[in-house]
C-alpha cells in the first residue's frame, strides 16, 4: 500500500433504504492533512465513524494505519486519535486528570504519562493550569487541550470532527498551527470542517455530496477546475446539486 495510511475502497453504509455513504474510495498519505468536506447530511460523519471502527460498513473495504476496519477494529482503535465536534474532555476533571485518563485508556505507563504530560503542558503554556478543572478554561484552550489529548498516545492518524466550531479566528489559526506541527511529526490528520478558509489549509480535500465524493484534489487544483478563486464557490457549486439536506 506504499505510504498510504488510509485506503478506502467502495465503502458503503446503508440504513434501511437510505444510503448514507455510497461507494466512496480514496487514500490518504502519511503525514498528510486531509480535509473531508460536505454539507450537513452528506455522510461525512457516517464515513468517519466507519473509519474509526465505530460503525460497520455495509460493504466495501478500508484500512486505517494498516489495519482492516472490518476485521481488526481493535487494532485500528489503538492506532488512531479522535476529537469530536462537541468538545470532548471531562469538564469535572482537571487538565492533568484528563490527560492521565486518556493516556491510561491507551495503555501508557504512569511514569511515561507524567513525563510527557509535563512537556506538553509546558509547551502549551498550560502548566500552571494543570490542576484547573477543564470547565473553567476558555473554549479555545479546551480545544487545544482536546487536540493534545487526542494525539498524546502517538497515534498514526488523528480524526478531527469539526474541531474548531465556535472559536474566534485567532484561536483557529493557533489550532491549525498545532495541526501542522502534528503533521510534520508524521501524524496523518483527517479533518472535517465547515470553514472554507480552513479547507485551504489542507493538503488535499474531498467534497462529499449525497453520500458520494464529488471532488477530490488539492485546494488550488479544485479552484482551477471550477474556474474560481475561492473554496466557498467550489463548495457552493457542488453542494447546490445536493438532493438531501438535514
Amino acid at each position: 500500500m506504499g505510504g498510504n495510511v488510509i485506503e478506502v475502497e467502495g465503502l458503503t453504509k446503508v440504513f434501511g433504504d437510505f444510503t448514507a455513504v455510497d461507494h466512496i474510495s480514496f487514500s490518504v498519505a502519511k503525514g498528510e492533512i486531509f480535509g473531508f468536506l460536505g454539507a450537513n447530511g452528506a455522510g461525512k460523519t457516517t464515513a468517519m465513524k466507519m473509519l474509526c471502527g465505530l460503525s460497520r460498513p455495509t460493504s466495501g473495504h478500508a484500512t486505517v494505519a494498516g489495519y482492516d476496519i472490518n476485521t481488526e477494529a481493535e487494532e485500528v482503535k489503538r492506532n488512531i486519535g479522535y476529537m469530536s465536534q462537541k468538545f470532548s474532555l471531562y469538564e469535572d476533571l482537571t487538565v492533568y486528570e484528563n490527560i492521565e485518563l486518556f493516556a491510561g485508556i491507551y495503555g501508557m505507563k504512569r511514569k511515561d504519562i507524567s513525563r510527557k504530560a509535563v512537556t506538553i503542558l509546558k509547551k502549551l503554556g498550560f502548566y500552571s493550569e494543570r490542576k484547573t478543572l477543564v470547565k473553567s478554561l476558555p473554549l479555545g484552550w479546551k480545544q487545544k487541550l482536546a487536540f493534545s489529548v487526542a494525539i498524546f498516545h502517538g497515534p498514526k492518524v488523528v480524526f478531527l470532527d469539526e474541531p474548531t466550531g465556535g472559536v474566534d479566528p485567532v484561536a483557529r489559526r493557533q489550532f491549525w498551527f498545532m495541526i501542522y506541527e502534528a503533521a510534520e511529526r508524521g501524524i496523518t490528520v483527517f479533518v472535517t470542517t465547515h470553514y472554507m478558509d480552513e479547507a485551504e489549509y489542507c493538503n488535499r480535500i474531498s467534497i462529499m455530496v449525497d453520500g458520494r465524493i464529488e471532488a477530490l484534489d488539492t485546494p488550488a487544483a479544485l479552484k482551477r477546475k471550477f474556474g474560481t478563486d475561492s473554496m466557498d464557490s467550489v463548495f457552493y457549486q457542488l453542494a447546490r446539486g445536493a438532493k438531501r439536506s438535514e
Partner: protein
Amino acid sequence: MTMKQFFAFVRKEFRHVLRDKRTMLILLGMPVAQIILFGFAISTEIRNIDTALLVPDMGENVRKLSEKFDASDYFSIVTVISDEADIDGLFQRGDADLVIAFSPDFDENMYTSEGSSIRLIADATNTNAASAMTMYASNIIGDYVSGIAASSGMYGVSGVQPNIRMLYNPQMRSAYTFVPGVMGLIIILICAMMTSVSIVREKETGTMELLLVSPTKPIVVIMAKMVPYFVVSMVNYLTILALSVWLLHIPISGSFWALTLLSVIYIVLSLALGQLISTIAKTQVSAMLMSGFMLLVPVLFFSELLFPVDSMPLVFRWFSDLIPARWYVIGVKKIMIEGLPMFYAAREFIILSVMAAVILGVSLMRYKNRM
C-alpha cells in the same frame, strides 16, 4: 493492559463522584434522613389519641375503665361529656378522634340480663388510624372485663379470650417493618438512578463517543462505572444497619454476613438495572425520571414497605413477584428480624441472583448492540 485501563476508569469515576459534593451529600444523607423520618416522625403506631368519654351515669366500673384509658400511652382523655348529642360537635370541631361511649346505667346493668355496652366511635377519615385505635380500645376493655369476670367467678362473661403473642417484634414496633423496606428502597434508587444518569451524561456530553473510539472494551467502561456506586451503596447499607441497631435498637438477629451477601447481590442487581435504563434513556432527565417512576413507585407499593402484598388482588401479587425489592425485603426480614439461618432465605437468594444475572445479561447485550 485491560486491568490498567480498568483502574484508569475507576479512578476517573471516583473523581466524578467525589467532586460533586452536593450529590455526594444527598447520596450519603438520604438513608440517614429516611431512617430518622421513618423512625421518629412517620409512624404507623398511634399515640396520644384525643379521646372523649361519654358517661351518662358514673359508676365504679366506668371510673376504673376511664382511668385505664387515661393511663395508657395510646389515649389521652380530652373531655368527658354526658350528653349523646354533643358527640357530633366533638368530631366537627376536631376536639376528639375517638369517643368511648358507655351505655346508660353502665354499672347497674352490667349484672342484669339487659347487659351494658360500650360503643367506640372513631373518626375513620384515616382508616388505618381508626382501626388501630379501636383495636387498642377493645383490648383495654377486653382486659378489664375479663379481669372482673375472673374475680367475680363469672367465667361465662369473658368467654374465650384469644391469647395473642407477637413473634419477632413483641412490641409491634413499625421500625421492624420499615428498616428492611428503606434498605430495599435506598439501594435500588441510588444504584439505578446514579448509574443510569452517569452513563447517559457521557452520551449527552459526547464523551462516550471518545471512549468508544478508544480501544477500551465497553464492558470495562460499564464495570468501572459501577464501582463507585457499589462503594457508596455499601456505605449506605452499613449506615442503615448501624442506625437501626444503635438508634432504633433493632438487633441483627441472624448472620451479618448472610445479610451482607444478600445485599451485595441486590446492589449488583440494582446497578445492572441502572445500566439497563441508561441504554433506553436519551437524556439525564429522562434517566432520572425513568428510574424514579419505574423504581420508586413499584418499590414503595409492592415491597411491603407500606402495604402488605398478601392482601392485594391476585394480579398485583403476580406483579409484585417481579419486583426485586420485594424479595430483598423478605430476605432481610428473614435474616435480620426473624434471625433465620441463611438456608431459610434460599428462595430469596436464588430469585435475586437469577434476576441480577438476567438484567446484567440483557443490559450488556443491549449495550453491545447499540454501539
